[in-house]
């Protein structure tokens, strides 16, 4: 019969009570699956579309035009001295990354129900891959932003190298919330109905259509508890030089994002072993 290597891979399957270790190493082991799921999500989201990847550009641009007409031109919302379209687009890029990643990861389990009941792999791979799939869109859309900045003769500040950090912050927040919602969504489909409202509410709580300078000084600490405030302010500061260096204020959003992510991970892991029974 088979001759086996001495370092044989042994799996112990047993009942686990309470909280579990995160075992993030498992995700690394399944990185190829993660890659294929990301690739599938991207591929499928543009399948059967006539415009294809052009949507990645069209969505932020259309939103920008809409917001510019309504808020910039009609309502005349101040924009810290920057042309309103570019003011809003700078915020829309990280926002759409966040919104898409959050929506993707929070529906990841429900969308992959058939996998949950039929195949084993670390379940974390699903919300992770759904969250990552949004990065391509922002990469494509950022070309438009660069074009617009060139058009308006705006040169990015030297702090432009901090952008990946702010993107990370947005992703962490999206994933943290997505982990909570995806597990809850499997239990209660109410989550699926409620999350668009959450996203909308969150958008108004983030300085996208308005500058954060409109928020009164006394509310600032509370306001900055929203990690997306940090992200958007960071983007504007690094690209347009408005609002000033967020500096130590960033500790708040980073802390909240980390708390969301960690609690999301543990919550997800705790419910993970019951996923197949809940579907």
């Amino acid at each position, binding site marked *: *019969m*088979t001759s*086996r290597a001495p370092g*044989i*891979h*042994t*799996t*112990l*399957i*047993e*009942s*686990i009570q*309470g*909280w579990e270790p995160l075992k993030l190493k498992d995700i690394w082991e399944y990185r*190829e*699956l993660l*890659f*294929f799921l990301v*690739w*599938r999500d991207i*591929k*499928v989201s543009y*399948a*059967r579309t006539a415009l294809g990847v052009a949507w990645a550009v069209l969505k932020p641009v259309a939103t920008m035009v809409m917001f510019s007409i309504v808020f910039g031109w009609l309502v005349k919302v101040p924009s810290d001295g920057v042309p309103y379209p570019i003011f809003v687009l700078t915020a829309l890029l990280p926002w759409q990354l966040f919104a898409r990643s959050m929506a993707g990861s929070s529906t990841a389990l429900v969308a*992959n129900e*058939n*996998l*949950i*009941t*039929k*195949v*084993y*792999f670390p379940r974390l791979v699903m919300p992770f891959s759904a969250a990552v799939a949004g990065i391509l869109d922002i990469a494509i859309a950022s070309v438009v932003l660069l074009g617009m900045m060139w058009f308006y003769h705006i040169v990015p500040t030297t702090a432009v190298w901090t952008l990946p950090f702010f993107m990370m912050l947005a992703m962490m927040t999206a994933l943290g919330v997505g982990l909570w919602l995806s597990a*809850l969504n499997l*239990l*209660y489909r*109410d989550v699926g109905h*409620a999350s668009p409202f959450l996203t909308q509410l969150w958008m108004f709580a983030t300085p996208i259509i308005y500058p954060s300078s409109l928020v009164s000084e006394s509310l600032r600490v509370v306001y900055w508890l929203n990690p997306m405030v940090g992200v958007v302010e960071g983007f504007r500061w690094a690209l347009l030089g408005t609002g000033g260096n967020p500096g130590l204020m960033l500790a708040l959003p980073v802390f909240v994002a980390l708390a969301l992510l960690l609690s999301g991970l543990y919550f997800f892991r705790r*419910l993970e*072993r*019951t996923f*197949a*029974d*809940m579907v």
Partner: protein
Amino acid sequence: MGDLAIRVHDLGKCYRIGHRRRYKSFGEALTATLCSPLKSARAHLSPVANSNGVHEHDDTLWAIKDVSFEVKCGEIIGIIGRNGSGKSTLLKILSRITAPTEGYAQIMGRVGSLLEVGTGFHGDLTGRENVYLNGAILGMKNAEIRRKFDEIVAFAETERFLDTPVKHYSSGMYLRLAFAVAAHLEPEILLVDEVLAVGDAAFQQKCLGKIGQVANEGRTVLFVSHNMGAMVQLCPRALLLSAGKIVLMDKTEAVVSSYLSESSPLIPDVSLDTSSNPNSPMVLTRCQIAAGNESPRSAISVASGFQVRLSVLARQEILGADICIRVSNMLGTPLFTANLSSSMKGLAKIKSGVHLFTVDVPGHFLAPDTYSLHVGIHRPNIELLDVHDAILTFTIEESGSAMWQYCGRDYGNILVDFLWSQEGEAVAPR
């Protein structure tokens, strides 16, 4: 050889039925979920009733309980049991899809599980893309899929449609491609559930052949199927699950026959109320079906044949009456009719009183399927005395007929063993 591949110890899985989703509101549910560690602690302290006033331990169901067994490296074990006996739950626990409630299992080696073919196939992706995606989902490494890609495609016979989205595939092509990916999974331990219940007969045979090949390569296989013929052919040993427990683990032939003799939900013994037909001179009072001279049962092994036993009450002496049994398949097509008169060489005189008749139907005659039995008492071409349509239903179970690898009933309901012969030697083609 003596190495263990799987060790299962006192494994149990408990489901709460009707327990979840009874929360009044989302908020309440959210709190309950968050507090579940506390709730379980509280449940231990006061096990009488939960907040709904329902006894918490009443609505639990043990899908499997106290299951222990060991599988040696390179062994092929069949898992047999009726629907709901816990076969799938066992495989799901072993493939880590769901966690056990108690006990543990140790698995020594890389596990591949095949609980369904085509898991994760996406209609909008092409055949080629789905091979890669599905391979990754089943746990294959990218390099491994690339190496086996041509082999997979050749097995599936879908070369021409590789770059067509699979939603345009015929269901047969789709299944072939899906199985082809799965069949090229090369784990040390393979868990297979009922995947052969798909596709046409030729394809099923190909799949069986592939599984047999996997088996010959010395891999450890756990195989769940309702196809007893395939079971006997592929697995030297099998275990029988009933109501979540292992009833028997032995040589497959022994387990299959034990499985078939388990009491069946179909009723093999029907007693009739004769008052419903008071004026007829001759009525049926009881009808039984059994294998040979055994006690009545509805699941009959294809090899054993069966016996129909009829109790007939003649209220007076009758001349010129005949009794017949007719068997039809579930589509309602009559397959044969057996007349008492044909066996007795003519219509006999039947005295008044209760008569017992038995009809013996040989084995290897009816193909595995579900059939219904009809009984009629009549005076040929004159009158019907008592007729019972579909008085009972029985199944012929595959236990190694000549046609075992063709499940489904495409080949007909009658098993034959006709003589074939070849005239002369082969002639070179012109």
